């Protein structure tokens, strides 16, 4: 098997046993990127010189028997909202297109401290707002499985980087489905962590009460290896609770016998592809084969999740993105007074989708509308969360589809409201703060990947990864 097709686990083992050097592994990925990224447009910035340097340092550590972790010497990529010291971080936005942060986000600092090698920064929708990377100023990232299709979004660059064998793992973010949906589109495994499981410090915020930083990789086992490094409390992110970080890799092999898994009936919405429903059915059969009991459950407020989310998220976006005013960082458009600098910098700096959300959020939070929109949405959020709480009293996990369709074509006619409504199957997990893993299980007749998601209660990543791993094992 070609080196770049191997999993993180396989490459890590080969490196730690002296069969491959980090430099060999890194050079193999660089070669793959150079041969195919012109077509796919995954990378916003490549850091190959830095990567070779970091790989050589990992090889020295191997020779000195001072390896740092199982991720030592392993080449990764980061969604371009994760701040990297001295490496441009753009959020795929004009307003930050030349921004070079002077510090590392906690998630990258932890990976770096574990010895990981940085190959570069990958594409995203502008400030993570979108479903296809088509709102990126760098243009769409094409789907490695079928380049006439999008890679999904907003972590489309991360999913494509994994699916195209450009890295062993990629850090993404999931605010309303932005890790799970691209994982489903590209056929890789995507871990959406519980709110607060991984520090968000230094990762550019979209909607602070919903944002989560997770990872995409070839397998659930690989995601578990990464999570062991990136999870945990961070004094710089006050939303990370003091919850111990289990050895996620050690519970992957637990048998599923006796587990109870629920399928929420409301997730089979009108218009969902039959092929996707079939893959959920096939997954159900695998689970039953492995000894789990599968039952139907109800999450009655599912359909209200979208409206609640698209009030809460834009409200938080409008507040969070007020920092981009052309004064402290990023680009600025000169004006004759301060007000002109603000309004013109933001006019030229933000794309349409970002502007739409800022305007909706500003409206929802403005005098006279706060109760009708924001307060109402926060109450509906409670009901969505209670649906999950109730379900998890009965079942250990939920099995559900991720998106109503497989990857759609590049250049699909724009329709903001349709794009929002399509998030219906991923958004509720973010509103509730629970975790989930997207697992590639099947393919459509036209060969496009189809994933399913396993959702578990907050901080039960060990269970979600365990189920995902067992499914992947029975498929391989």
């Amino acid at each position, binding site marked *: 098997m070609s080196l770049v097709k191997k999993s993180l686990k396989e490459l890590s083992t080969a490196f730690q046993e002296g069969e491959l050097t980090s430099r060999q592994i890194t050079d193999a990925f660089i070669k793959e990127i150079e041969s195919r990224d012109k077509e796919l447009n995954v990378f916003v910035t490549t850091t190959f010189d830095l990567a070779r340097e970091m790989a050589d340092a990992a090889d020295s550590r191997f020779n000195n028997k001072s390896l740092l972790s199982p991720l030592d010497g392993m080449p990764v990529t980061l969604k371009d909202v994760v701040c990297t010291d001295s490496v441009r971080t753009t959020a795929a936005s004009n307003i930050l297109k030349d921004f070079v942060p002077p510090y590392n986000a906690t998630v990258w600092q932890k990976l770096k401290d574990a010895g990981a090698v940085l190959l570069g920064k990958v594409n995203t929708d502008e400030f993570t707002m979108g479903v296809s990377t088509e709102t990126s100023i760098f243009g769409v990232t094409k789907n490695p499985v079928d380049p006439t299709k999008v890679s999904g979004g907003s972590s489309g660059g991360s999913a494509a980087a994994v699916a195209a064998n450009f890295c062993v793992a990629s850090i993404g973010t999931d605010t309303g489905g932005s890790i799970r949906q691209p994982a489903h589109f590209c056929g890789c495994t995507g871990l959406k962590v519980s709110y607060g499981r991984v520090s968000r410090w230094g990762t550019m915020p979209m909607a602070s009460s919903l944002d989560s930083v997770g990872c995409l990789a070839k397998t659930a086992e690989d995601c578990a290896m990464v999570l062991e490094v990136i999870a945990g409390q961070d004094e710089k992110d006050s939303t990370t609770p003091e919850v111990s970080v289990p050895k996620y890799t050690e519970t992957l092999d637990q048998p599923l016998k006796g587990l109870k898994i629920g399928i929420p009936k409301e997730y089979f919405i009108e218009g969902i592809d039959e092929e996707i429903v079939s893959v959920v059915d096939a997954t159900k059969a695998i689970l039953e084969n492995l000894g789990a009991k599968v039952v139907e459950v109800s999450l009655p407020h599912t359909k209200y999740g979208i409206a609640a989310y698209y009030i809460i998220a834009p409200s938080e976006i409008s507040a969070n993105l007020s920092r981009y005013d052309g004064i402290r960082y990023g680009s600025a458009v000169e004006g004759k007074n301060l007000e002109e600098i603000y309004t013109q910098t933001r006019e030229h700096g933000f794309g349409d989708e970002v502007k739409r959300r800022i305007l909706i959020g500003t409206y929802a939070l403005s005098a006279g509308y706060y109760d009708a929109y924001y307060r109402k949405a926060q109450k509906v959020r409670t009901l969505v969360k209670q649906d999950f709480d109730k379900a998890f009293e009965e079942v250990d996990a939920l099995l559900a589809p991720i998106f109503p369709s497989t990857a759609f074509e590049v250049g699909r006619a724009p329709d903001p409201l349709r794009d929002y409504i399509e998030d219906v199957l991923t958004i509720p997990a973010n509103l509730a*703060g629970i975790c989930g893993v997207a697992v590639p299980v099947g393919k459509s007749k036209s060969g496009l990947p189809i994933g399913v998601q396993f959702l578990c209660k907050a901080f039960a990543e060990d269970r979600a990864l365990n189920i995902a791993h067992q499914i992947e094992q029975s498929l391989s």
Partner: protein
Amino acid sequence: MLTQDEVRHIAKLAKINLTDADIERLVPQISGILDYFAVLEEVDTEGVAETSQVTGLESVTRPDVIIASEIEEALINCTPHQVEANSVKIPKIM
């Protein structure tokens, strides 16, 4: 349905300059999205508490201790404007 003037007013609050063409394009889109939110009226939220956090953490504090940033100058130099005396130089406000 939002009016063009209402969207101009929101844009002013959000400090985003919009051209007439932007307004033409955005008004129907934003109106359509706001109309969609009406679906929430179906939900009885009488007596339901708001969810502002999902981790149980509220008003987290830390000891009031100064920690040197060590990258102060680099942070200030992120500005696209001139830096003078460790400060960002901007046009007069008054």
